[in-house]
């Protein structure tokens, strides 16, 4: 097992390296240069030179990259160009709510998607199957932020079941907190749930068609045991492999859903940073998100290795 873990760890290193280089280069390709853009209106050459110096833009590129990465690895992301805040602190402030929102959405997506996918596969080509397939198709196609808009209008403004904006702090009570999380998490989960339904369905169908399941049927084992003990276990492997991709997609969707529900998460920080040209913040948030997705994928890989000995090679 230890060998498996170390192999996977080594395998993600190049990915992490390329990812960090990509993020670093984003600021380098700003037309006119970051310093000129920041100096803005009527900037004197002296001011631009000062900013270049402050940002360390006069050093060789690889030195800049290494020092940026080294600082970031120690949690020092520098200061925001807008309000001079410590970016690391800002990320720490915002990370929990984004993690909570995306994990809640992931859990909802799995809780909805896996049972629906299994049902769909077991009752293949029935009316139930086509209903589930159609709804999941719609789930993939609906823009999450539009669902969010409609949800705000119906469930917050018309019915007043849920608060329209924000996430209530946990200190103000557990239920108000959960209540404010419901709409954002459910709307965010819609696409992911649909994707998981579809993957579970096809994984389950493949499993049900395999020789060992046919053998099990031939042996006269109870249907329940065949479906859940044998088929589902194998069907879940492809599902687990896409959880990493789904989680990445959820982080992307969170950018828009956080915007609609006014949730102060990393997505909102990124959008504000992009709109206000706060490059250090954008770089830092992008780096944190990348590391998050890489870690999720690593966790997924390892889970697969546990579930399916064949993939350990």
């Amino acid at each position, binding site marked *: 097992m230890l060998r498996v873990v170390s192999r996977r760890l080594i395998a993600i290193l190049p990915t992490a390296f390329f990812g960090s280089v990509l993020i670093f280069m984003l600021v380098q390709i700003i037309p006119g240069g970051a310093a000129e853009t920041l100096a*803005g*209106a*009527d*900037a004197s050459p002296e001011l631009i030179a000062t900013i270049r110096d402050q940002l360390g833009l006069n050093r060789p590129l690889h030195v800049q990259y290494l020092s940026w990465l080294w600082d970031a690895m120690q949690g020092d992301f520098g200061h925001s160009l*807008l*309000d*001079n*805040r410590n970016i690391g602190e*800002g990320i720490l*402030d*915002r990370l929990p709510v984004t993690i909570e929102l995306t994990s809640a959405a992931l859990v909802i997506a799995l809780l909805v998607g896996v049972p629906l996918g299994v049902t769909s596969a077991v009752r293949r080509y029935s009316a139930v199957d086509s209903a589930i397939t159609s709804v999941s198709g719609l789930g993939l196609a609906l823009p999450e932020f539009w669902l969010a808009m409609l949800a*705000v209008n119906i469930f*917050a*403004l018309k019915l*007043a*079941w849920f*608060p*329209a*904006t*924000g996430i*209530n702090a946990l200190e103000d*009570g557990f*239920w*108000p907190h*959960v*209540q404010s999380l*419901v709409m954002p998490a459910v709307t965010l989960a819609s696409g992911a749930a649909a994707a998981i339904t579809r993957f579970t369905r096809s994984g389950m169908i493949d499993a049900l068609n395999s020789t060992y399941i046919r053998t099990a049927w031939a042996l006269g084992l109870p249907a329940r045991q065949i479906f859940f003990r044998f088929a589902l276990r194998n069907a879940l492997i492809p599902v687990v492999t896409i959880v990493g991709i789904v989680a990445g997609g959820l982080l992307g969707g969170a950018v828009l859903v956080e*915007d*609609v*529900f*006014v949730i*102060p998460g990393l997505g*909102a*920080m990124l959008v*504000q940073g992009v*709109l*206000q*040209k706060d490059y250090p913040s954008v770089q830092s948030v992008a780096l944190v998100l990348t590391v998050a997705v890489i870690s999720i994928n690593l966790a997924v890989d390892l889970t697969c290795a546990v579930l399916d000995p064949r993939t350990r090679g």
Partner: protein
Amino acid sequence: MKQLIGCIAALLLSVVPQANADSRNNILVVGMGSEPFTLDPATGLSGFDYPNLYSLYDRLIDFDPATMELLPGLATKWEFIGDDKLTLELTIRPNVKFQDGTPMDAEAVKSSLLHFKTANRIHDLDEVSAVDVVGADKVRLKLTKPYSVMPAVLSDRAGMVVSPTAVQKYGTDFQRHPVGAGPFMLKQWTSGTSLELVRFPDYWNKARIKLAGITYRTILNPTSLVSALLSGQVDHGFNIDPKNWPILSANPRLRVAVEPSTAYYEIALHKAMPPTDNKLVRQALSMAVDRGVLADAILGPGMSGGNALMPIPPSWFAYSKSLENSVRYDPAQAKKLLAQAGYPDGITIKICATPLVGYGTDITDIEREQMKPAGITLDVSVMPGSACLQTFNGTTQFHAWQGAFSGRPDPFLTYQQNFGTSGQYNRGGSNFPGVDALLDKIVATYTREAQKPLYEELNRLWIDNAPFVLLFYRPQYAVYSRSLAGELPNLQGKPNLTSLFFKP
């Protein structure tokens, strides 16, 4: 399974919070459509930050909310001394403390004014050459020229007194750790979420304050702000899109108010690039917008504060009623002016606008249609607010910027900054004949009665030169929870919420 879902749903619904004053312990929750980058009055530039600043800082000189006449603040008295009136003497209120316990005395006032000057962001104190302490409660400001507007300047950002110990302690980080002598002090500031303030127990004018605290919640999306008001998540909001009025006023929990404001919508023009460097072209542009129709479409019928031809609202003394209707929508005449200016085939104006905010692309969409018959093509580019302004100011990519101006505490400042040769909003630094001399004359005049005829002349020059295409005045659209009372709307339209309280 079904029972479980039903059970969870029931639990969720049983705890729908009915937000009210009791549950919030007398803390006012305000929905803010923007968030300050800095709470140091010397380094912030946004007109939206004033509610926060008014809560944290008291100013040397206060003003009457209705008339903007000056009133004592942290300075109990002020007068120009000497025959040349080149010295302004302030008498500082005794026994006032900052929120960190530091005494607010003459020395503190001096270092606060110097802090403002050295920050060098806002040029309101450029005419102050020296600040002298001449006694425990006396400060003298030496002026470089007669400057009757200095007391009004001290009722604005420059007069917000900051604690010298806190400035010393935090350095550039003071902007995140503001300490003033105002009624509320910082409890917690979480970027993107909220700014929480609590009552300052040793505030000098304690009787005035009834709230236990104010929480400014950041809700950048205007629609979400309306939702938060409708669902009772916030008690108060301002700068609300008045198109939501029918729904908001139908809500039994809410009260809507249209309050005065010095703010107006404008098309800012670049005066150093053709064709907007040409006076005839600018006049044509001013004639090519139908202000009334535009205002009704943007703000809703009858909701605007009237058509704007002058950069100050009709309720101010510097306004000239005689010039009110001197420019009308006349595309045919505009076309003639363009031909006269050497553009018989019309012109294309490149303009930058920001979507999703009050003065977004709806305005430019309508303007484009109105300008068409005059032979003017409006070419709109969309950018986020700060990028838009930065590009207009810093490059020659755009002839125009679709925006708004929030007004200053004295008309002189508005005119000087927009119309004077060295004015910071005079893009292109155009020297309009006679304007600077007239401005100098106004600022060396010390009563409103004496200034009034000078302003009439200035307004005539403004309309003739058309340095901006002014559109319409925008009142302050505020929404209050019905349990709130005590608001003091001011003419500037920058709300001071410290006087609010929950009705018993």
